[in-house]
Each structure stands twice: as structure tokens, then as C-alpha cells.
């Protein structure tokens, strides 16, 4: 009996401890931060009534009936910017020459705010947050003067706080370097007449400065607006393989940044402004303090890109940069260290490219609403993971983001 009582008391203690542990465990489980979601996100649509922002939680898809979350915006978006602190928030900016933007809550699937740049300017379609998430930097152009600038917005109320020089005309994509304060900006260098900008169909935009176009890559201190470094294609050493005239007609437009700060640049060439038929490289790499390194071979592949690249993404783990050409229906890849061509993948009208969160894949998107997974090391597609979203038309840029809902929402 005593033993029994002893045992009972001991069991009771163990039981109590177990219950306490269970309760603690349950409590921890109850208040554990929700699992991060990996979202593939892009502007989409093929006509004004369908323009919007769509995203896909690829790890929680119905394999038989994959669906995307689609939020109408009623303007054609271009790039997105992901808030690095409030990770459930993104901004989508209008394609040039639009002046609208929206902030979206990805947990609540709703637009939190609409804002615009000042009426005398328009967005160039890209932006990025400051490291603390308090500011949004946007590429903008003044409608009358054509002067390029970086708009600075307060992300709490979307008031424009000011702007800084982009140090070139037609700034396009901009990103924050790993140091957390340096902006790298691709100034496209193309100028447009005000009349040209009035066209409803932007394909009719015709640059009016082809003879004098001047594209550059600028590094700017986002705290002071100071130009830290600027490079041009025409400064590439020993450019004998390509005529200086041809290189001067390449517009630096899209960028991505490796974990170590190396920048990959995607370009578009103004063929009408080049007298000869020279094939002009469409991709380059850059490190601070050095000249741009052209990714110029193999020539037959570059010729098939039709003078046009649409997006670029770096896979730092694999050491590979991927570029897309919707005009050539191709994604092409180069090794970051050697600059050697690594491979390609064919996909009709492919423009979006991003790297999966585990860095295992490049992911391609196209205007037919398709997603393709390309292994980052073998550059072979995994056909089992093909996805197609009926009725969606992925636009230029695909982003892959990790978002964690606020704890209070769990």
C-alpha cells in the first residue's frame, strides 16, 4: 500500500510533469510563428480589364487544379518590391509610362494602399525597399525633361519624401546591394518624346535619342544620394570584338545581385541605330571597381535572342546567372566566376525568371501562364513540376519571396 502510495505519488509527479511539459509544448506550438510560405509573384494580364498581380503558393497547390491568387489592379504592372521586414507586404509598380502603384497584403489578399508618383513623372516599373523597410526607392522619369530620378517614398503612408539623381536617363531596374545602403541602378539611356509617351500602346514608343543614347550602371549611396561608381559598356577593355558604336546602342536595363555583391546585367539592343549587323552581347557581369565583363559567347545563341533580354536572376549557390529572352523564346545561363556559357532552356515567350528559396531551381514564367523549374546545377528542366495557370498571363518579372504571417494572426 505504502509502495503503492509511493508509486502513485511518483506517478502523479511524473504525470504532472508530463502534463506540464505537454501544456508547455502545446503552448509553444500554440504561439509558434506560422510556417513561412514561399510565394511566386508577378504582374499578370493581357488587357486592361485583366491587369493585376497574381501569386502562387507552390508548396500548397492542388496538383490537379492549380490556382493562383489574383488581385486586379486595372493598370499594367511591371516589377514588384518585397518588404524585407513586413514580409507579407509587396508593392507592384506600373509599367512605363504609368504612374500608379499598389501595396498588397499577401496574407489578407487585398490592396492596402494605392499611390502614384507626381503627375509630371512616371514610374519605370521597378523599385526596392530600404533594408529597414521604411523607404521605397523607385525608378522614375520626368515627362517633360526626360531626367531620370530615384523616388523616395515613406512606406507608412506612401507620401513622397523626395528624390535623388539616378545619374542617367531612363533609370530602369534598381536594387539594394548586400551592404544595405548602396543602390545599383541600370540607367537604360533611352529618351522618348512626350508625344510618343501619349500612345496607348507602348509598343509604339519610339526612342528619339538613338544617336546619343547613353546607358550606364550607377552605384548610389541611398543615404546621401552620392554617386559612388558608374560604368558603361563603352568602357569595356579591348572592345575590338564589338564595334564601339554597337556597344553604345545596348541599353542596360535589368539587374540582379549575387550574395557577394557581383551584379548581373541584362540588356536590350537598339538594332535600328546600328549601321552594321554586329551581334551585340546582351548580358554582362560587374564587380565594384572593375569594368563590365561581357557575356558574349556563343554567338549563334546570342543571335537567337533577337537583341532582347527581359529579366535576369542570379543563383548564388550554383554560381549561375540566368537570363530570359521572350523574343528568342529562350532562357540562357552563364557561370558567374568563369563567364562561360552554361546552357539554355526553350520556352515560348518566357520572360520571368527567379530562384527558388532553396536555390535548387531557376523558375521561369511566360505569358501563357506557365511555370517551369530548371535545376540550377544541371540546368535540366523537371517536367513533373510544370505548372500552367489558365487565364493568367505572367508579365515581365517573376519574384519568389518568403513571407511569414504576423504572430498575432496565427
Amino acid at each position, binding site marked *: 500500500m505504502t509502495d503503492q502510495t509511493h508509486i502513485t505519488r511518483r506517478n502523479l509527479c511524473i504525470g504532472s510533469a508530463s502534463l506540464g511539459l505537454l501544456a508547455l509544448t502545446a503552448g509553444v506550438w500554440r504561439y509558434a510563428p506560422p510556417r513561412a510560405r514561399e510565394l511566386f509573384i508577378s504582374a499578370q494580364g493581357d488587357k486592361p480589364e485583366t491587369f493585376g498581380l497574381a501569386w502562387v503558393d507552390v508548396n500548397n497547390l492542388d496538383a490537379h487544379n492549380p490556382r493562383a491568387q489574383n488581385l486586379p489592379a486595372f493598370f499594367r504592372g511591371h516589377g514588384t518590391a518585397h518588404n524585407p521586414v513586413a514580409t507579407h507586404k509587396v508593392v507592384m509598380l506600373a509599367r512605363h509610362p504609368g504612374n500608379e502603384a499598389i501595396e498588397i497584403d499577401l496574407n489578407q489578399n487585398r490592396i492596402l494602399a494605392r499611390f502614384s508618383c507626381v503627375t509630371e513623372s512616371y514610374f519605370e516599373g521597378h523599385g526596392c525597399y530600404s533594408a529597414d523597410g521604411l523607404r521605397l526607392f523607385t525608378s522614375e522619369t520626368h515627362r517633360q525633361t526626360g531626367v531620370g530620378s530615384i523616388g523616395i517614398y515613406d512606406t507608412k503612408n506612401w507620401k513622397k519624401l523626395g528624390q535623388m539623381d539616378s545619374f542617367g536617363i531612363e533609370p530602369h531596374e534598381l536594387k539594394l546591394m548586400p551592404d544595405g545602403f548602396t543602390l545599383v541602378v541600370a540607367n537604360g539611356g533611352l529618351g522618348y518624346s512626350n508625344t510618343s509617351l501619349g500612345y496607348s500602346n507602348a509598343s509604339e514608343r519610339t526612342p528619339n535619342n538613338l544617336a546619343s543614347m547613353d546607358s550606364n550602371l550607377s552605384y548610389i549611396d541611398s543615404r546621401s544620394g552620392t554617386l559612388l561608381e558608374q560604368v558603361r559598356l563603352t568602357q569595356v577593355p579591348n572592345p575590338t570584338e564589338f564595334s564601339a558604336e554597337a556597344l553604345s546602342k545596348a541599353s542596360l536595363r535589368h539587374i540582379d545581385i549575387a550574395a557577394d555583391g557581383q551584379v548581373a546585367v541584362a540588356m*536590350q539592343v537598339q538594332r535600328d541605330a546600328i549601321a552594321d549587323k554586329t551581334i551585340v552581347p546582351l548580358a554582362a557581369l560587374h564587380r565594384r571597381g572593375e569594368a563590365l565583363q561581357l557575356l558574349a559567347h556563343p554567338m549563334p545563341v546570342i543571335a537567337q535572342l533577337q537583341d532582347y533580354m527581359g529579366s535576369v536572376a542570379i543563383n548564388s549557390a550554383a554560381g549561375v546567372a540566368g537570363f530570359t529572352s521572350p523574343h528568342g523564346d*529562350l532562357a540562357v545561363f552563364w557561370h558567374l566566376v568563369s563567364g562561360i556559357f552554361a546552357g539554355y532552356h526553350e520556352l*515560348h515567350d518566357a520572360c520571368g525568371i527567379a530562384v527558388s528559396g532553396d536555390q535548387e531551381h531557376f523558375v521561369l514564367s511566360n505569358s501563357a501562364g506557365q511555370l517551369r523549374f530548371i535545376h540550377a546545377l544541371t540546368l535540366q528542366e523537371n517536367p513533373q513540376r510544370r505548372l500552367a495557370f489558365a487565364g493568367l498571363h505572367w508579365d515581365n518579372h517573376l519574384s519568389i519571396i518568403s513571407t511569414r504571417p504576423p504572430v498575432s494572426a496565427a
Partner: protein
Amino acid sequence: MKLLKLIKIAKSSVLLACIAAGCLTLTACNDTRENDSVVVTQAVLDATLAEAVDAQIVPAVDRFKHQNQALINSANTFCATPSETHLIELQNQWKNLAAAWYALLPYNFGPLNDDVVFPEYIKVDSYRLNGTDYTATVRAEITKNLKGSFALNADYFAAQAFQKLGLLALEVALFESYQNAQQTPAVIVEEFVQMPRKCQVVQGLAQQLMVSANYFENGWRSDYKNTGKAYRTLFLNAQLADGTPPITQLLSSVQEALDYLKKRNVVNNRAQLSGETWVLMAALVDEVDTLLNGTGRNQFAIFSLMTANGYSSSVAAVKTNIAGLRDAINSRDAGVFASYLGLLDGNFKREIPNALNVQLGLNFTDGD
């Protein structure tokens, strides 16, 4: 009683059919829509594609091979008994072959263009890649071949870079002398007589071109890229490797050919020695025209689909632009020809896909 019921059912069916037909007619009368739903079924679209493949694309592949074989035969005849008559026959056969190529040019996909790095078509037409004129390269190569003593056999030509092969190399070899680039037939014939290696060059180039022609034919008809399946089968079953719908593939390819002619100013840069450039342009325009109109052996044609979908004004616009191209060809007006190329190129980007409810892709343009 039963008969009465049957008559009533039949009357109802006729009434329903009339209403349905009326609805279709009303739908078809609207010519201002863009990319909304169309009445032509997938089966009709598939039949139209099958007609395009079997009545035009595969025959164009066959004609190219046939003309290539005729060139080989003609070269053998000329080389056996060189004469001005045989030279002119050989030159005319080159013209026939070039025309067959330009009829095939709108279909630059599948076996013609199945490798990103070294697509087969560039071995036929080096200019098509990016508009680089390799005439100087070809002349230097012919000179090297004539002056050398190495064997000009099949292995030698198989190892040659694409810039030194194809229609251009044959044109230079057949239409001018390597010394002083003279075009007088007597001078050219005399050179062939004095330099037997020149015949080996022509025969080697023609045989190598046949390798490409065989590759095209085998890919379309029998085995595409070692899949064990004909590209025709893959295309018509919508089983293209990258998932592109076949109608998208076809329309994009024709549009790219038109864009190529204009952007690379082909009319002023190709077939200059033979003086055949306008004939080649006509061959391409004829092919595109027939693709749209159909061969007439049945009702399956792109224009018919567009009309059935209510886009008769778009059909008229496309026909106007094709007529403009023909006028420009007849008057040898390169400027007007380029203008109409641009218009027809635009038709293949917008009016035709819209009328067929086909998505070619988004408008990714310079500045995006």
C-alpha cells in the same frame, strides 16, 4: 399519334437549330471583337492545321529536297560536259532551289530550327541567323579550295562551318568566276574547264546541302531528334517539347520570317549575283498567301476560320497587304515592299491571332 409526336419533335429540333444558327450568325457578324470567345471549334482548328501541314509545309520540305537533288543531277551533267548551255541549266536549277527555300522560310521551326546553338537552317542560309553577309568568307574559301591540293570529299564539306556552306556558297561558285568575279557564262565555264576542283566544290556543296534537306524531310516525316516520332505527329498532336501550341508555333514562325525580310533588308542583300531576289520574295509571299487562303481542296484555311469567326474585315486587310507586296514585287520597289512587309508582319502579330483567338504572347517591347 407517334408520327405526330415525331413531327413535333422534329419541328422543335429545326426551331432550335434555327435559333442556334441565328445566334452563330449574329455572333459572326460582329467584326470588332478582340480575343473574345470564337465559334470555331478546336476540331476545326486542328483540321486546319493538319491541312496546312499536309498540303503546304511537308510539301515545301519535299520540294526543297527535290530541287536539291535536281541541282546535284544538273551539276553532274555540267561537270561531265561543261558548256554554257549546261551552266545556264545549272544556274537555273540553283534559282529553283533558292525559290524552294524561300517557300520553306516561313516554316523555320521543327527540324529546320531544333538546336539553339547550331540550328540546321543556318547551313542552308547563313544570312538568316543574324543578317551577316558572308560573301567575302565564301569567296576566300572557294579560292582556298581551288588552290589547295587536299581532298574535297564529303568529310571535308561536312566539317565546314555554316558560313561557308549553303545557297550563298553555291551562288558564288556558279554565278561568278573566282578570278575577278566575272559573271560572263563563257568565262565561268572556262574556269570550270581549267580548274576541275571547282566542280568538286560545287558537287561537294550541293551534296552537303542535301544532308540538310534529308534532315528536314526525315524530321518532318519519320524521326524528329531521335524521338522515334515524326515532327508532323508531334506538331499535330500538340506535343511540342516546350509546350507551345502548334498554331502559336506556326503563326509566330511566319511572323518572324516577315520580320526577318524587313529587318535584314533581304531584298537588297540576298541573291544579288543571280539577280533572283524578287523572284525569291515572290516565292515567299505566294507561300504565305496560300497558307492563309488554303489550297482550295477543302474548306480548312486560316482565312475561312477568320471569316467564320466574324473577322472578315481583318481578312480583307491582310489581303490588301498581300496585294501591296505583290505590286511592290512587280514594280521592284524595295521601299514599298518593306512597308507592306511591316504591315503584314503586324497582321500576324495582331489581326490573325485575334481572329483565331490565339495567344502569341505579351507585348514585351524595348523599354520593358
